[in-house]
């Protein structure tokens, strides 16, 4: 599987808390012996807004005039800090690194075999309110695996994947999940959706796909309701959930809440453009 990955790419922007993502990406790049590439995405919409005469920024301190100069200065500072953090993480994990600043969609900066690791959360504005990461939306335009990292790298805890239907995409999902489980506790829990074959058949199929991978594999039927899935994730001490994207390349229903509440990382594989 890892032969399919050419780079580990970390998209960075001014809104996200990226430390966990950078560290996770650097670790993966080092394990897979591929380069680590940071892409700082400047927010075109924000720059556009700053060009309007009435643009203001509302902060906790009050209202401040928003100008392009002001925004660009901030973006440069954020990009510079992101570059330093990326280089430090690469040095720490002995990975090769590069860095680029783009204005516009991330997709333009990605290559075919890129594995994307992004920060799962934006910096909070107030309490639980977050303006959702742009990577949720941006992801729909790519067919790259997207790893949303919101916690520091952990070697403990299990990797959980939910398979909706057998097929090439599910096999790819399973292989990636096994790959990442192998970097940690080696515990992989495969949950088969209700419309999937019988449990024994699922176990057989999973074993066939993974061959003799050195992991602790177990299978079970997936709970029907998102709430039950959250509870199961907590019971399994889940550190990563690996899911297939929906047909449109978006996230399955309830996943954002699942990730937020379970506090674990998320890997989304496949999508509209991935094809079968």
């Amino acid at each position, binding site marked *: 599987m890892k032969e399919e990955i050419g780079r580990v790419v970390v998209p960075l922007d*001014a*809104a996200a808390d990226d*430390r*966990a993502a950078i*560290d996770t990406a650097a*670790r993966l790049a080092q394990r897979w012996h591929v380069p680590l590439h940071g892409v700082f995405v400047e*927010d075109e*919409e*924000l720059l*556009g*807004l700053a*060009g*309007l005469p*009435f*643009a*203001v*920024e*509302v*902060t*906790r301190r*009050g*209202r*401040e005039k*928003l100008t392009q100069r002001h*925004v660009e200065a*901030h*973006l440069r500072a*954020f990009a510079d800090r992101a570059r330093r953090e990326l280089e430090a*993480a690469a040095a*720490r994990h002995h990975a090769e690194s590069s860095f680029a600043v783009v204005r516009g969609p991330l997709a333009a900066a990605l290559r075919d075999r890129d594995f994307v690791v992004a920060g799962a959360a*934006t910096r909070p*504005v*107030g*309490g*639980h*309110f977050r*303006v959702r990461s742009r990577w949720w939306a941006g992801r729909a335009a790519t067919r790259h695996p997207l790893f949303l990292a919101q916690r*520091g*790298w*952990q*070697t403990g805890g299990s990797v959980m994947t939910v398979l909706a239907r057998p097929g090439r995409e599910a096999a790819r999902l399973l292989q990636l999940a096994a790959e990442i489980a192998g970097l940690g506790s080696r515990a992989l829990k495969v949950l088969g959706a209700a419309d999937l074959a019988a449990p024994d058949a699922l176990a057989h199929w999973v074993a066939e796909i993974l061959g003799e991978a050195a992991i602790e594999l177990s299978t079970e039927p997936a709970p029907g309701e998102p709430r039950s899935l959250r509870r199961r994730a907590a019971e399994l001490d889940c550190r990563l959930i690996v899911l297939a994207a929906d047909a449109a390349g978006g996230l399955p229903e309830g996943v954002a809440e699942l990730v937020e509440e379970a506090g674990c990382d998320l890997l989304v594989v496949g999508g509209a453009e991935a094809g079968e």
Partner: protein
Amino acid sequence: MAQTQKSRGTAVETGKALPAALLYRACDPAELPFDLAGQLEDAPGLIGQERAIEAIEFAIAMRRKGYNVFALGAPGTGKHSLVESLLQRRAATEPMPPDWCYVNNFTEPQKPVVLRLPPGRGKGLGEAMKRLIEELRAALPAAFERDEYRARRDVIDQEFKHRNEEAFGELQRQAEGKGIALLRTPMGLALAPKRDGKVLAPDLFEALPQAERERIQHEIAGVQGELEAVMQKIPQWEREHREAMRELDRETTGAAIALMMDELRAGYCDFPDVSHYLNAVEADIKENADDFLTPPQMPEGMPPGMPVPAALQEGLNEARFRRYQVNVIVDNGARQGAPVVYEDNPTHQTLVGRVEHLARFGALVTDFNLLTPGALHRANGGYLILDAQRLLAGNFGWASLKRALQAGEIRLESLEQLLSLASTVSLDPAPIPLEVKIVLLGAPSIYYLLSSLDDDFRELFKIAADFDDRVERSPETTLLYARLVASVMRREQLHPFDRGAVARVIERAARLAGDADRLTTGLRAIVDLMQEADALAAAAAKETVGATEVDAAIAAQFRRGDRIYRRLQEEIGRGTIRIETDGAEIGQVNGLAVMSLGGLAFGNPSRISARVRLGRGEVVDIEREVALGGPLHSKGVLILSGFLGGRFGRARPLSLNASLVFEQSYGGVDGDSASAAELFALLSALAEAPIEQRFAVTGSVDQLGRIQAIGGVNEKIEGFFDVCRLKGLNGRQGVIIPKSNVPHLMLRADVVAAAAAGRFAVYPIETVDEGLSLLTGLPAGEPDAEFNYPAGTLNARIAARLDGFAEKAAALARHAEPGARS
């Protein structure tokens, strides 16, 4: 005229050789009713120190401020062991003092709180606190993992979340409805006009009709106002959320720890300070329950996810819970009675304790756990013995001790704080009340210096325990001394000392006292002698120590330190240092000095010479002129002038100049023990009467011509005896000593033997005239009513010489008068 008196029943006739019996007072075996010293009981304590013992016992009984003790006495008199045994005996009957603990002050951590507990309970409190924290580390996470807690927390979270989402959601809906996008900016949020789901670019906005642009701006301004209002409410909502969470945590923690805290408090309900402390602990745990629930915070700069070494993890955990520890600074649990402490290095820190520091992540940190006790803490409620010289030389030890005694409390602070040198914030622990009796041990000179120079000293050390350096030698004290020998023998596990050995030790004690009728109380020297004699007996495979071993040990002690003495003797023998022991010389006499080098004192003969000439009545002390003479020596020489003036100046003016010198002396000279010898040299020079060089003289003289006692008489006689033996004993040589020194004679066995055989002699004198007659072989002569001396006597010759000087001086004066004919 010779005077006869009795000493120890033997006649002492001045100007005549002393009988050998008076040169050494042997220990009478009849006074020693035993064969081996082991048959004797231990001595009841130190001998002859009743005055000091009474003083110490009085001070111990006086429970009032300032009744501390200064035990003064010469080194080696056994002050320390006596004081310690008296204090131990008393302390064993006194109650155990309390335990003292330092605990955290939760409101002002830099001011640790002190707790007083009955002996042994301090440690118990420390262990109970340790158990409590261990239990809480398991119990609190369990309490916070219960469904009930989670549910309540979820409710609070949901309420907060709902409030936020409602506010922002409404705002977002309102904005969406008006075609406005909510964008994240570097520091907050902004509102932008949208068209077809995208933010309107500036050029497109500018292309809009004026009215449309104004409408959009108006709409945005309206939503912006709402947004600002929401943003301003966020801090308040966050505060309320945090407070609600904290209150829930407090309640949960309180419920989880209540039972444990109640049990702990019940054990200390009789101690209000401890109960108060435990209440503070409970309140702190409620406020800081997070410490028990979350892993410790990693040091700054540590990358996320990096595995934490177990030792670091443990250290971080320990650091988090240090504030609940109990620092038992004084634990009297295992003690019997009151403490008796000896601090051999009394400095500020060893007395009042110290504030130690830990290096943590590159910084030095401290807390109440790093307060360490000093000797005052350990001795509190009992007794503390200190060496005065070390205390005064030690680092601010004396100042800190006085401060503690005056304040009646131990204030534990660093030296930097004491001297106001530290500008950093440090600990200021609560002081501990001090009730201690201090006993300082020191030399008399230190006591007298402190008495005269330090006003506080007299207030704080009202009792002086004065240790005598010698005791009268009587049958009773001799027997006590023998018991002391037996005690030392047993304590030091020496071979048995037989009666002869004990007798020799007692005789040595008299010699060390410098008095045949006294015994030294300087036990250190006696113990050393006994140990060395024991070693010799062991080397000779003897089962008991006899007089032979004691004598050999004494000789070996002298031999080990006599290199300089032997060198001087050798140079006298070779004639490099000129000492004559035969023949006669005008104006020259053998004087005797004592040199002390290391632990050894020996007598050293020295020629003293005098020259006289016409002058104005001055006696010049050459030693003083070249600044080699000390004040006592100068005083002695001035007394000679007084004697000359008194005896011969009444009948004529003293028109002479005289000079006196210690020949071949190249070092300092002090003391007046040579003043008699100097006077004899001067009178010999005046009378032009030769002095027989077979004599050496020691003694001081007063203005009336009476000879007075001096120190070191034994060493001086032995020193001249050794020179005479070196040059050849002729049976006529001897030493002239003051008669008042006869009771001090404890001479070496070879000197006594030579005297008994008539080959050497010791002559006691009382007056200058007795000495002069002995030295010159001429009668001194008694004056008549008009101060004239019989013809042919020494004094007549001196008077005639002085008359001659006076006439010449008068003639010279007449010639010098104005108008006189030459």
